[in-house]
């Protein structure tokens, strides 16, 4: 087991190092093959670990931090949660690497790109497998760092570089809360091992656990783009599309959900924390879906839908259903990667046009992409019998079964969100693929890129078999996760469950119907006409993400700029610089006054030097000849 886990981390790290150090020297094909092989090697290790898996296991790979009481070795922990995520990450990232090689075929700076992708996989696996919080935090910051560099990959454009900085700074707010939580945990318990901490929650009074849980929630908000720290994710779409698929949809942004699921035994005891998580998730899910309805940029629609879907996962954690949240996390990774990669194919075929109102007619000219994208949209919308339907329904069911006015309210909000989700998914499909034919730009790369979509589409559509509802037989994940805390969710009767699924399925169909009425057939041309005119206030409100960016600009950025302006011009230039300037001026003036006493002639100096030396010698000689005392 140790060898599998070590190699799983080692392959991507080694691949990244090779790309970094030798990327320019080796032939291009070799570098690309190396990057893909590193991730697939890691995936094979994950599979081997899955087959060899019997019970949760801790593996110590090496020493890391050790000072006084603080012990943080490089130790990895394999349990159902980390194992299922590791397998998913290996597979999805492996496919995306292959896709990325072809997507970036024209990119001159490919070694940097591939090295960062590999490094990202390493950091993400570290985060997933870490047994102690410092190691988890190392992975946490590692993925943030790679994300920052990859969003700003085309850094010569200032907008991209700004988007990278925005992502980094926004997530930093959450990270700070997480660091505070980690330090506080160490002060309280004297250990940072996750397995030990999870068993010690009962030692502390409730309010401390609540405070730590809330700090971790803030950390998760930053990384998982939850309200109110979600503003960075739509802008993160400035990065290359494979990056959006891998980092900002399938893996990194789910790290917050993973953190909360991982620490669930510790923080799950506090009802306040669970309610806060659920409310955050519910509000975010609704926020993301409502914004996605009005977006015009293909990738921004998907970005907002990611925010919304991660909101669902948070809802699942908040309802105490870690299995349901993880189930949705896995299925979402498949279908969201699929949607993003499909979007990448579309963008590639449309000469890098991203406005969905300028697309259309790709249904017949790009059939493979169309069918795969449709599969992704079906999953996202949660149409019955797709993977997304089962996973989303398990979260909804958990909310319903939790009961109480808060959770019932959130259940209703989640239902509205599901309706919106189905609507915007098919709005996208209708706008991008239907309507009059356009001539796409086909090339060799596109053909390979389309092939990558197929396995993801299959997994997305049939992902439901991972965890079938109880009336269809035992769910695999439920059985697998049963021994995890929060893994065994409350189960309703079969009729109740069927009823809940019927409601969710009906809403998804209603959303599809609404999208068809508004964007399908003849109505599509009408909407295209409307799109060129000025958007209505409501549409503008949603298009700009509820004006959150503007709000933060007024609330935080403007005062900050004003303050830094004062500090710069009044304090730095006015006080500090002026003081130093005057001091230097004074010293200079006194120096030139003193300088009047000197001749500036070297010979004069030498003679005085020699005379001084003679004087000293004479004094010494005098001491020798007439010694005193």
């Amino acid at each position: 087991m140790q060898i599998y886990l070590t190699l799983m981390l080692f392959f991507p790290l080694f691949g990244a190092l090779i790309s970094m150090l030798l990327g320019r020297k080796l032939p291009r094909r070799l570098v690309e093959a190396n990057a893909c092989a590193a991730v697939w090697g890691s995936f094979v290790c994950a599979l081997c670990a899955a087959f060899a898996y019997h019970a949760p296991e801790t593996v110590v790979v090496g020493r890391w931090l050790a000072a006084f009481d603080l012990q943080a070795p490089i130790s990895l922990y394999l349990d159902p949660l980390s194992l299922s995520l590791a397998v998913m990450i290996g597979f999805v990232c492996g496919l995306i690497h292959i896709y990325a090689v072809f997507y970036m075929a024209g990119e001159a700076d490919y070694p940097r790109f591939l090295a960062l992708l590999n490094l990202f996989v390493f950091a993400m696996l570290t985060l997933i497998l870490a047994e102690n919080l410092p190691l988890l935090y190392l992975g946490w910051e590692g993925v943030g760092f790679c994300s920052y560099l990859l969003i700003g990959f085309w850094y010569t454009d200032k907008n991209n570089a700004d988007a990278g900085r925005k992502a980094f700074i926004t997530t930093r707010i959450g990270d700070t809360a997480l660091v505070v939580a980690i330090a506080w945990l160490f002060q309280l318990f004297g250990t940072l091992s996750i397995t030990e901490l999870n068993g010690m929650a009962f030692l502390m009074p409730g309010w401390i656990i609540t405070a730590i849980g809330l700090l971790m929630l803030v950390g998760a908000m930053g990384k998982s783009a939850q309200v109110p720290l979600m503003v960075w994710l739509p802008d993160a779409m400035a990065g290359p599309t494979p990056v959006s698929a891998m980092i900002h949809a399938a893996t990194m942004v789910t790290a917050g959900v993973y953190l909360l699921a991982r620490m669930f035994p510790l923080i799950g005891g506090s009802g306040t924390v669970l309610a806060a998580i659920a409310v955050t998730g519910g509000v975010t899910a609704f926020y993301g879906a409502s914004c996605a309805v009005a977006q015009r940029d293909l990738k921004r629609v998907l970005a907002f839908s990611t925010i919304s879907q991660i909101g669902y996962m948070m809802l699942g954690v908040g309802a105490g259903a870690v299995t349901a949240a993880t189930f949705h996390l896995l299925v979402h990774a498949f279908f969201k990667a699929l949607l993003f990669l499909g979007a990448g194919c579309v963008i590639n075929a449309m000469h890098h046009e991203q406005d969905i109102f300028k697309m259309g007619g790709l249904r017949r000219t790009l059939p493979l992409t169309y069918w795969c994208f449709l599969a992704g949209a079906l999953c996202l919308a949660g149409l019955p019998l797709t993977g997304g339907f089962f996973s989303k329904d398990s979260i909804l069911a958990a909310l319903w079964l939790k009961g109480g006015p808060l959770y019932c309210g959130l259940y209703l909000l989640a239902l509205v969100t599901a309706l919106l989700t189905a609507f915007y998914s098919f709005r996208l499909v209708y706008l991008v693929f239907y309507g009059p034919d356009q001539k796409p730009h086909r090339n060799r790369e596109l053909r390979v890129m389309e092939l990558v979509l197929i396995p993801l589409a299959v997994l997305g559509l049939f992902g439901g078999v991972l965890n079938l509802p109880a009336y269809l037989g035992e769910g695999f994940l439920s059985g697998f996760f049963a021994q995890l805390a929060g893994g065994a969710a409350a189960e309703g009767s079969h009729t109740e469950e069927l009823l809940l699924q019927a409601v969710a399925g009906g809403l998804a169909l209603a959303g599809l119907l609404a999208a068809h009425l508004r964007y399908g057939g003849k109505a599509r041309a009408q909407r295209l006409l409307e799109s060129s005119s000025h958007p209505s206030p409501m549409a503008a409100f949603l298009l700009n993400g509820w004006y959150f960016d503007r709000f933060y600009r007024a609330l935080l950025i403007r005062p900050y700029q004003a303050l830094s302006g004062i500090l710069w011009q009044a304090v730095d230039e006015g006080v500090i610089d002026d003081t130093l300037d005057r001091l230097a001026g004074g010293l200079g003036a006194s120096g030139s006054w003193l300088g009047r006493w000197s001749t500036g002639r070297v010979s004069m100096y030498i003679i005085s030097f020699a005379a001084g030396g003679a004087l000293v010698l004479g004094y010494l000689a005098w001491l020798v000849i007439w010694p005193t005392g």
Partner: protein
Amino acid sequence: MSVPLYHVLILASIMFAMGLGCVIAWRANVIMMLIGIEIMLNAVMLTFVAGSAQWGIADGQIFSLMLIALTSAEVSLALAMVVYLHRRKRSVDTDDFDSMKG
């Protein structure tokens, strides 16, 4: 030890005095001043070596070896500066360079 220490010291003092005289007297030419400095340094080195031989300790010899290395570095720098100064004022007379005067 065939040569007594005093003799060597006297020789070194004479060399030092001559070097100093050269530096003081020949200020019209920077290069000659550098040569004077070299002579003074060699006198010092001679003292070191003599002391080392007198007391049988290698320190003095090691020190003079280091001095040789340092001196060569110093001379190369100094000559480069002489070339530079000559380029600026077409002169190597030290009294022409009096910008140090306040």
